[in-house]
């Protein structure tokens, strides 16, 4: 990340910030999408994070930390989006549906479906740690630093995320459910 661009943007240069936005937005969106598992929510989180980052940029003390700083803002924007979404998904009816058709019968497709369902059962905080660690490849210490949480908490969230995935995947088959529509 170009330190000069960050400094210029920090002093109010919108064009410099636009350049920065184009440099980081792909990564931010990819992270948001993987945390939220929803394109619309991820777009909202991305936009909210970019606008908030612009507003708060003058408070950024170390220009070299811009990328980690804006990812932190993004993760919090994801928390907000998740909260809004959950507010109304909470009263959605759970409907029985047929199992996935898996037309090619491949284990990979079935595994992916299972993982998707299991992943959605994780808390948003666990997903954030999981994505930052496994997708961005950040060491847990950096994940903790980025999120502003103790390293032990980050480690614990990752542990429980993995455990949650394992439990969901190895549990006895239950009636397959899906969220109802909307909300």
């Amino acid at each position, binding site marked *: 990340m170009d330190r000069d661009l960050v400094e210029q943007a920090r002093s109010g240069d919108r064009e410099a910030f636009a350049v920065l936005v184009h440099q980081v937005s*792909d990564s931010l969106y990819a992270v948001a999408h993987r945390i939220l598992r929803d394109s619309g929510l991820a777009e909202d989180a991305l936009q909210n994070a970019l606008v908030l980052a612009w507003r708060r940029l003058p408070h950024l003390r170390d220009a070299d930390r811009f990328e980690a700083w804006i990812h932190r803002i993004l993760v919090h924007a994801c928390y907000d989006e998740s909260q809004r*979404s959950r507010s109304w998904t909470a009263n959605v009816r759970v409907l029985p549906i047929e199992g996935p058709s898996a037309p090619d019968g491949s284990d990979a497709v079935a595994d992916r479906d299972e*993982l998707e369902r299991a992943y959605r059962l994780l808390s948003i905080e666990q997903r954030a740690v999981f994505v930052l660690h496994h997708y961005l490849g950040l060491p847990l210490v950096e994940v903790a630093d980025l999120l502003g949480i103790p390293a032990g908490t980050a480690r614990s969230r990752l542990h429980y995320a993995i455990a949650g995935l394992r439990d969901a995947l190895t549990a006895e088959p239950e009636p397959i459910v899906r969220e109802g529509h909307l909300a």
Partner: protein
Amino acid sequence: MTDDRSLERAARSFIEAGPTRAPEAAVEGALLLIDTTPQERDLRIPLRFSTMTTPARVAAAAVIGVLAIGGASFLIGRSGQAPNVGGPSPSAPQPSPSTTQSATPLASSSPSSAAQVDYSTIKGTVLMEHLGNAPDLSEMPTTDYHAERRRLYFMDPATMTGPTAREFLPNQPPTGKLNADISSDGKKVVFMDTADPAAIWLANVDGTGLRKLSTACSCSELDPAFDPTGTKIAFVHLEGAWRWSRNGAQLRLESRAGPSTSWLGVRDLTTGKVTKLDQTVGPSNDAVPEQPSWSPDGKKIVFNRTTWGSTDFPEHGVLQIVDVTSGKVTTLTAQMTLPGDADWSPDGSRILYTNYPWSSMGSIGGLPNSQLVSILPDGTGLLGLPAGVGGSWMPDGRILFQAQRAAGGGYFWIINADGSNSRPVNLSGDSLSDLPQGFSYIPHWIAAP
């Protein structure tokens, strides 16, 4: 996939799959918002002033005194002024004016922060459709099912705050209310309830004269819309099914006993006579005509026909126009995935609608981002407008809507028909869209008599 190593490998592969590029429209939308958003800057006050001589101290005290007196006079002078209704603000967020595919803009739909627009020159009231907890925060926030919490509220554009919202006909009828329409003279309101089967009601704007228009029938009647004279309504007749519209989060079409059919009808409000528009009959209950809106000459009605998939979810839809006299139905060619909430402009030149309409889909969150668009009545000239929902025409030909969350959402905005001059109705109003205060989603502007 049970041992830790293979699980972690599979999980890594799973998390790596997915989009790696941000949608251009989202990034451009954010940059547009940033264009009008100021940065937060610390107010820097030196901890210690440098040593001053006595004459300098006297001079400084005099300057401070003059500034204090001047400032107080200014504030006193302003206190009697009317609130800023929809006035421009350089710091106000602007809805993203993302233009849809194959759009033919009438003009630039970019919001302008420079133009001065005084919406207070248009007198009137906003009737908003509302879902969830009361906007005055008088109810405990809950996501539990409450059929009656689909309500209508009046809001004064000069305040646009939850505590000043006034509920229309509280507990009458004792069900929820939705899909309201206002007569062109601004004196009457028609709406549907959330009962099973659903019925249509009429009342005066002042809350008097409430009466049920639907007669005893195993059918539901939905989505009433006044004709330009206010003497007739168009509505949806739905038989053999019930459209769940109770709290918006559980929209679906449920089967009911009896023959399955749906069509648009016109009811004379004086005689009660219903005229069935035969050519709007749905081929089955998975293709229901919905949300009619009249052309200003009263000759045509635009509506959307939603096709409900096997999962109960609205799968796709089309926008259609029926000629009231001949009954001929035409389908507009420029379509979005799920058009709805159509509203014919007061001058008849364009039809405003929403792709992924909230009222049709009955929801607030977790939906694809909604897009306002308008189209010429012949199906050409698709014009992309800001990301938003619940668009309705104002009497002066501007558009009132709620912006999507990331684009100044939670507040009602007004734009010109070409998408320009985006302005919030009230800069100091409350957010009207969150769990504690419920979710306002379709505003209607009632012109002052």
